[in-house]
């Protein structure tokens, strides 16, 4: 058995071996002067390339947040578009430093894949989209339907669970790329398109006649999405995690990209705010970063609310549970002190 295992291990040895020598990921990032960020191959609102090749979206903005924290410059990011199937291997093998690609935090992934989930940047849930003329009003009426989805995601498992739980059957039609799912659904190959509700809203914009389609009310799963780093670099893990929290904390304190500069020159600002911009305390030093790390994040990228409105706003998705805890949502940052 051991011999077989050894023999089989050769396949991806070369990539793993070469990256293992490099040492902590953070050192490598500082040395090369940018972070390599894994993103989706194109999902409006989360990570989408524009015609001139610049990336934008919620997931992209959190890559920029980390770059702003480490380098004081949000533009020091390079992007690697990855399919759902490729993403973890890319992170494990060191091809990318941070995976910020609408990836669901699950126990199995967190424990057995050598990954660390940093924090949740978007609380999502899986939903179903159908043609309006099908006359379906609830997901419970989908018995016997053909369902199109993406390969290798939690979506496939949730869907199987949901149909089993409700005693319904279905026919899965599973594609490797999201674009092919959209095309097949549009061509009528399946009755239903399922993925995270944010994804449905984004993909709906790519359909021939978006208004002919509707998202059913049921949300069948919890999909906390957020950036992932490889296990074994605690410093980077801390930096990514606290960069995300800094954006949430800033929104709670009422700091945004427009007004944060004033705090630096305002000696009578409250102590939380002074700590946040690095005038007091040593938050930055603790992370091994510049004292103005959080200031840089907000100045360059903005607070969580700004990031959300900029990227998710155009999809016309309500803020919902992604609102601050103080506004009825569940976005909550541990204290920055």
């Amino acid at each position, binding site marked *: *058995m051991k011999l077989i*295992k*050894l*023999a*089989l*291990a*050769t*396949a*991806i*040895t*070369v990539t*793993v*071996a070469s990256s*293992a020598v490099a040492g902590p990921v953070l050192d490598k990032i500082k040395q090369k002067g940018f972070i390599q960020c894994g993103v989706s191959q194109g999902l409006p609102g989360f990570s989408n390339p524009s015609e001139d090749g610049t990336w934008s979206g919620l997931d992209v903005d959190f890559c920029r947040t980390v770059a702003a924290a480490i380098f004081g410059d949000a533009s020091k990011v390079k992007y690697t578009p990855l399919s*759902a*199937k490729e993403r*973890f*291997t890319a992170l*494990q093998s060191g091809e990318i430093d941070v995976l910020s690609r609408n990836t669901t935090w699950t126990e*199995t*992934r967190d424990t*057995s*894949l*050598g990954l660390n989930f940093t924090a949740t940047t978007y609380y999502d849930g899986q939903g179903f989209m159908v043609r309006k003329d099908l006359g379906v009003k609830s997901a419970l009426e*989908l*018995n*016997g*339907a*053909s369902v*199109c989805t993406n*390969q*290798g*995601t939690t979506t*496939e*498992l949730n*869907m*199987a*669970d949901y*149909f*089993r739980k409700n005693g319904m059957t*279905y*026919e*899965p*039609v*599973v*594609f*490797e*790329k999201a674009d*092919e799912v959209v*095309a*097949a659904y549009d*061509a*009528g*190959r399946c*009755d239903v398109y399922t993925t995270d509700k944010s994804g449905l809203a984004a993909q709906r914009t790519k359909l021939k006649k978006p208004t002919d389609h509707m998202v059913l009310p049921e949300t069948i799963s919890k999909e906390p999405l957020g950036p992932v780093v*490889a*296990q*074994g670099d605690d410093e980077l893990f801390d930096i990514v995690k606290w960069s995300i929290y800094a954006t949430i904390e800033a929104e709670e304190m009422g700091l945004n990209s427009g007004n944060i500069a004033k705090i630096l020159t305002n000696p009578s600002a409250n102590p939380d705010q002074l700590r946040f911009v690095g005038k007091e305390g040593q938050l930055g030093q603790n992370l091994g970063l510049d004292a103005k790390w959080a200031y840089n994040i907000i100045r360059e990228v903005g607070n969580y609310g700004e990031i959300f409105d900029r990227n998710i706003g155009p999809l016309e998705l309500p803020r919902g549970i992604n609102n601050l805890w103080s506004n009825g949502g569940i976005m909550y940052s541990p204290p920055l002190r």
Partner: protein
Amino acid sequence: MSAQIDSSRPAKPPAWRDPNVTAMFFQVLVLSLVLYVIYTLINNTMMNLAARGIASGFDFLSTSSGFSISETLIEYDESSSYGRVFWVGLMNTLLVSFLGIMLATVLGFIMGVARLSSNWIVAKIAMIYVDTLRNIPLLLQLFFWYFAVLRPLPKPKAAIDWFDSIFLSNRGLYMPKPIFESGFGLIWAALIVAIIGIFFMRRWAKKRQEKTGEQFPVLLTSLGIIIGMPLLAAIITGFPMSWDFPELKGFNFKGGMVLTPEFCSLLFALSIYTSSFIAEIVRSGIMAVNKGQTEAAYALGLRPNLTTRLIIIPQALRVIIPPLTSQYLNLTKNSSLAAAIAYPDLVAVFAGTTLNQTGQAVEIMAMTLSVYLGLSLLISTLMNWYNARMALVER
């Protein structure tokens, strides 16, 4: 006497100048170097996997998969194991490869022969076929077939139907499925007896022709036997078979057999693409047979039809078979593009979904690679055996 001969030979050189010994030495040296590199690579991988906290081993194969697969040749549901997923994927790969090879060979031979036709139109059509299909990437053809097949087809509720038993919609082609009832075994037995009978009849007919020169209508008799015997058995047992008709229920058809758009377009794309290469191989094979062979056959009074079948093709096959083997290998490996159009082959369900759910990249990729290696070796072994049989036998 013998001592004299011995002394005339040159003296045996010392070991380090003996070409046999040095050759052996370097071969052993290179082999041990290669083995050492492999050992280091494997060792390194295992250590790195452990250091990164990535689980390894084959335990995942027995855990339940939790996802569903649309087309399976063997029993499968969400509670089946990942090991089962592997077999489901492998079966689907084998099915589409096998049928693809058959179809590509037939199409390729027809097109290859057509290119050499004396009929100008036929030859040009074959030339356009080959030149067009050979130069368009397979993935594009796959998408073309998939979406070209899907778009014009109606929704299930408006399906095109024939005799209320065959339905064509964008979910696939639904046909009645035969259900074998008890007593059907006798029909199978009759079929097997018929095949054995034909085998002996052919041998007898060939012997008789060699002895007396008289021909026996082998093809017609064979057809008669292979249809007649099972039919007789069916009449005796009273047709122990019923049909499961597809029916529109809710969103889609239920029951019957189905050919899905995914399967059809993958099969079409693979066989049509490969057939354009096979056509060129067949053409070159036929052109490699000396024209004198045809002329000699005509001089003996053989008709063109028989000349092609008995003189040209057997000689052309010697040239055709080796490159044909590579096309079969290509087709089998190209079937892995299935994931792009949702056909659940090995790469899609095992190296795709399973890999993503378990994260066991090293194990899963190694298993998948071994399957393709195994299939390739199997195909080339079979084809080499066939080639050896077809090779020129010197008498």
